[in-house]
């Protein structure tokens, strides 16, 4: 008998007294250690911190039995700070960096009873779409080990897909939670900009970055979001909008909800199997009572170039802090002057994708090009946002496939960054507009690679997204299908 590996079953195992927090924690760590040689999903296992935490839960059991995430093992993307546990952003630049503090999301999940068991791989500084850009090697997709898990939160998505942990955190600057969730067959939610504190998140592009949960079901994602959302005085961009109990929104009733489909955006470049799964998913929503409408999203076709102009500009500025002085890597050997030390440190510490983006961002911000590129992109960003705002006067959610293709082969797009960027066509708009969006498993290609359905809603309408995704899960079993790896691991566990 294989136990379901969700958040609630882990919690129930502890709260019912069937097992201890320490046993649950040891079990998760053992799974990770068994699977990591094949998947490379984790940069580090936080065994010492996790076991100490689990022991504390067992010791003060009465205090924790009602906690929403009691004893639930959680993996944290390695660009979110964990006190005393190495946080590398999968970069040589931060290979030995041990933060002296926890990110707010980490502290809040722990306050809700969670146990942080490890740090998951990502593309370096969360730049990429395939998790091939980690300085510590590519992550492999649990469904097909010769394929990418997506990126940049590829380690978190692979870890949840392989049922190594019930849930994980990712960060999403242009689709980095949703696209790997789609490619690995799990649920990924990017909340509204400002919904979740970014204090302790290693900054990539500050007007776009947002932290979000990855889980096997919308219900589990709802529990995580409820625990970590809300204002934080350490992040001035966090919102004081009230945090509802997102799990309470999962009624299964989606009658009358209007789901818009931007047909014009879907005419070209979408894999035939992805289109087939997407169309079938729309039928499932319609059968449950949602109304399907065509919507127009003017200027959304420019979202990818706008995103790469805006995000690289912000990244070039954010990453200026890596100078070999206060923390992180410094070029070895005798360096006579400060400028040379900076330039060598950054050349040796950053990988190729990070350097490429710093170069592009430096260019679009430089005198003479600022108006033509950066300012122009910001204006088109306004137009894209207006298009979505207009659409949301007519519909409650917009549906597209999360990714135009399923997981591609490792190495297939590495030499052609532009091709890699074009794969982000359906995800970047949610970041440019600040809107919440979710990816939920909606089928498989003929090669048995997962396909994701993406739903986007209005600002702070996460409850609508989660309700739609949960309703969809009640009528399909895609989210309950696990890759072959997970099966063998789960068997070993029981």
């Amino acid at each position, binding site marked *: 008998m294989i136990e379901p590996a969700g958040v609630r079953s882990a919690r129930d195992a502890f709260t019912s007294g069937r097992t201890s927090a320490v046993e649950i924690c040891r079990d998760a760590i053992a799974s990770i250690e068994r699977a990591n040689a094949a998947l490379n999903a984790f940069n580090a296992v936080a065994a010492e911190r996790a076991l100490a935490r689990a022991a504390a839960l067992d010791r003060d059991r009465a205090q924790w039995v009602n906690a929403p995430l009691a004893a639930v093992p959680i993996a944290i993307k390695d660009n979110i700070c964990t006190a005393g546990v190495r946080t590398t952003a999968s970069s040589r630049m931060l290979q030995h960096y041990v933060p002296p503090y926890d990110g707010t999301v980490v502290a809040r999940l722990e306050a809700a009873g969670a146990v942080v068991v490890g740090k998951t791989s990502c593309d370096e500084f969360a730049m990429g779409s395939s998790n091939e850009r980690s300085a510590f090697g590519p992550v492999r997709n649990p469904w097909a080990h010769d394929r990418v898990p997506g990126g940049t939160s590829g380690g978190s998505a692979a870890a949840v897909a392989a049922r190594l942990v019930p849930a994980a955190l990712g960060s999403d600057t242009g689709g980095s939670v949703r696209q790997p969730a789609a490619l690995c067959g799990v649920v990924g939610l990017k909340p509204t900009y400002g919904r979740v504190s970014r204090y302790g998140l290693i900054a990539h592009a500050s007007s776009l970055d947002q932290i979000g949960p990855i889980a096997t079901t919308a219900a589990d994602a709802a529990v995580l979001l409820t625990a970590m959302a809300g204002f934080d005085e350490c992040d001035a961009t966090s919102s004081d909008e009230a945090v509802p109990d997102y799990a309470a929104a999962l009624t299964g009733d989606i009658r009358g909800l209007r789901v818009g489909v931007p047909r014009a955006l879907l005419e070209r470049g979408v894999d035939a199997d992805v289109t087939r799964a997407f169309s079938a998913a729309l039928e499932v929503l319609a059968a449950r009572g949602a109304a399907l409408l065509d919507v127009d999203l003017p200027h959304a076709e420019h979202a990818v170039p706008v995103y790469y102009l805006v995000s690289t500009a912000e990244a070039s500025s954010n990453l200026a802090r890596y100078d070999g002085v206060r923390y*992180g890597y410094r070029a070895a050997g005798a360096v006579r002057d400060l400028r040379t030390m900076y330039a060598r440190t950054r050349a040796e510490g950053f990988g190729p994708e990070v350097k490429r983006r710093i170069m*592009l961002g430096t*260019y679009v911000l430089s005198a003479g090009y600022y108006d033509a590129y950066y300012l122009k992109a910001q204006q088109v960003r*306004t137009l894209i946002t207006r298009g979505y705002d207009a659409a949301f006067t007519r519909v409650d959610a917009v549906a597209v496939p999360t990714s135009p293709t399923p997981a591609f082969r490792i190495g297939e797009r590495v030499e052609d*960054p532009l091709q890699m960027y074009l794969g982000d066509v359906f995800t970047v708009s949610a970041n440019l507009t600040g809107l919440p969006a979710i990816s939920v498993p909606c089928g498989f290609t003929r090669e048995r690679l997962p396909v994701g359905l993406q739903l986007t809603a209005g600002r702070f309408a996460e409850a609508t997204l989660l309700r739609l995704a949960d309703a969809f899960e009640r009528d399909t079993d895609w989210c309950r299908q696990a890759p072959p790896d997970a099966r063998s691991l789960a068997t070993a566990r029981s």
Partner: protein
Amino acid sequence: MAAFSVEDAAALARLANLALTEEELALFARQLSDILAYAEQVQRVDTAGVPPTAALAPRAGAERADELRPCLERSTVLEQAPDAAIDAGFFRVPRVIG
């Protein structure tokens, strides 16, 4: 259309404080040209009178009292540095002047 020469790339790398190799400069010159050629479509959008979106912060301009709060110990911070005189309370860098 922006077409980058290796010299253009070298000038950018200096601005970005990146000591790149000749191979990297040649590669990035070609790739940045390709990416910006693709991004040309943005130039064709009519944006007359459209304000730029630079930030989405819902509480823009929020203020708080400017008062002392607990923060990290100086030694804790300095321990992260690749080179520091922790007891003296300084980061150590290569000579800046003279």
